[in-house]
């Protein structure tokens, strides 16, 4: 178990030290949210209506943005070879890397959400709902994104292809996330049903993401 802790700490530190770390993702999130009112007009009522969707799409894009380096940096400096050949279960290695990556880059997005919610005029309860759905749903984005990152690891400019491959997989997450965020009161069925589906998708990602990404990384060694 000690090795997992060490891997987590190292990955977290590296994610924070390289290229502005958490800040760059949050900045991108802010940029996406800012650009919407310029597109649809400064109509606070309209913005409040689509606010949850804006925040979710912003978070989705910000998550995808940082994922292409998840394994690529390790491949370029040779660390990936050692991670694969060491004998540690590669699925767990991937899981730990995803956890560290999410803690370093995904969690700041969730923390920034309440502040960015004010720009789109959400009321208090909506803010809670959007933040809660992102907290539960964003890890699923990272986990499914890891599959794309594993598949495109050997490509020099795999970032765009990664997004193209991952966005269709992310559609269910977006649907249930936004539905829960836009539903009525928190305790009603309208919120709970999609929210539970969202939880299920995250659990699903927890299994499929590491399995498929590890398989793809093993191929990359050939």
């Amino acid at each position, binding site marked *: 178990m000690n090795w997992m802790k*060490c891997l987590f700490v190292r990955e977290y*530190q590296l994610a924070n030290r*390289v290229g502005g770390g958490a800040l760059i993702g949050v900045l991108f999130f802010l940029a996406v949210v800012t650009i919407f009112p310029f597109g649809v007009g400064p109509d606070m009522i309209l913005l409040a209506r689509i606010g949850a969707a804006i925040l979710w799409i912003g978070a989705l894009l910000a998550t995808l943005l940082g994922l292409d380096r998840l394994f690529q940096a390790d491949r370029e400096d*040779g660390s990936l070879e*050692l*991670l694969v*050949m*060491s*004998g540690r279960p590669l699925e767990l290695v991937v899981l730990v890397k995803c956890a560290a990556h999410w803690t370093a880059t995904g969690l700041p997005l969730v923390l920034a959400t309440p502040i960015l919610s004010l720009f789109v005029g959400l009321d208090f309860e909506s803010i809670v709902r959007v933040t809660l759905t992102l907290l539960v749903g964003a890890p699923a984005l990272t986990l499914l994104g890891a599959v794309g990152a594993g598949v495109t690891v050997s490509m020099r400019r795999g970032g765009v292809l990664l997004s193209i491959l991952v966005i269709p997989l992310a559609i269910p997450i977006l649907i249930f996330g936004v539905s829960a965020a836009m539903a009525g009161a928190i305790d009603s069925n309208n919120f709970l049903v999609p929210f539970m589906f969202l939880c299920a998708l995250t659990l699903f990602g927890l299994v499929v993401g590491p399995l498929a990404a590890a398989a793809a990384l093993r191929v990359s060694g*050939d």
Partner: protein
Amino acid sequence: MNHVDFEVGSGEALIVQGPNGVGKSSLLRVIAGLVAKAKGTIELEGGMPERSVAEHSHYFGHLDALKPLQSVLENLSFWRSFFEAADFGDGKVRESMSEMEALETLGIAHTATLPAGYLSAGQRRRLSVARLLVVPRPVWLLDEPTSALDKASEEVLLGLIADHINAGGLVVAATHLPLNLPNTRYLNLSPVTTESEHMFASDDLDDYFDEDEQGEG
């Protein structure tokens, strides 16, 4: 690669030779478990039965596996905790060095707190070797170990490899430069078509997948 068959004993080194592109590196990568072998077996006699050969091995390739933003010590400590030590089998257990001891042995102890990005190419290579010292594993797979090393570093590295062999370790090195090591055997590879191209270039399926590799320690 077809019909590659070799044995290396404990306390011996195997030098894999051959022209460029013949598959010296591939052979090491197959033993390290990085490339799936089409056919054949790789066995380690006297090793831990529940572990693969790769889990008894250190792989020392062209890349240094260092993170430039982390300090030299952080880099080394991580690999020390990440890799699991493996027994030498016949009771010849080598005690592992601490990180600082390894850095001192390699003459880069003064850089311990510096970011690894500040090191010169030769120093980076030495730091990469330090990984082999802090985690005891019996099999060392070395891919062109002396490339990018100056004369002094090469001497240090060859000394360490010799120590490993004398302590009962096992070395498989791919190189086109002569290596001055004790107890050396040689394996010469010559070019053949690789199996994937074979499949489509030849009409005969029987020739496909005709590989036999064996290593025993």
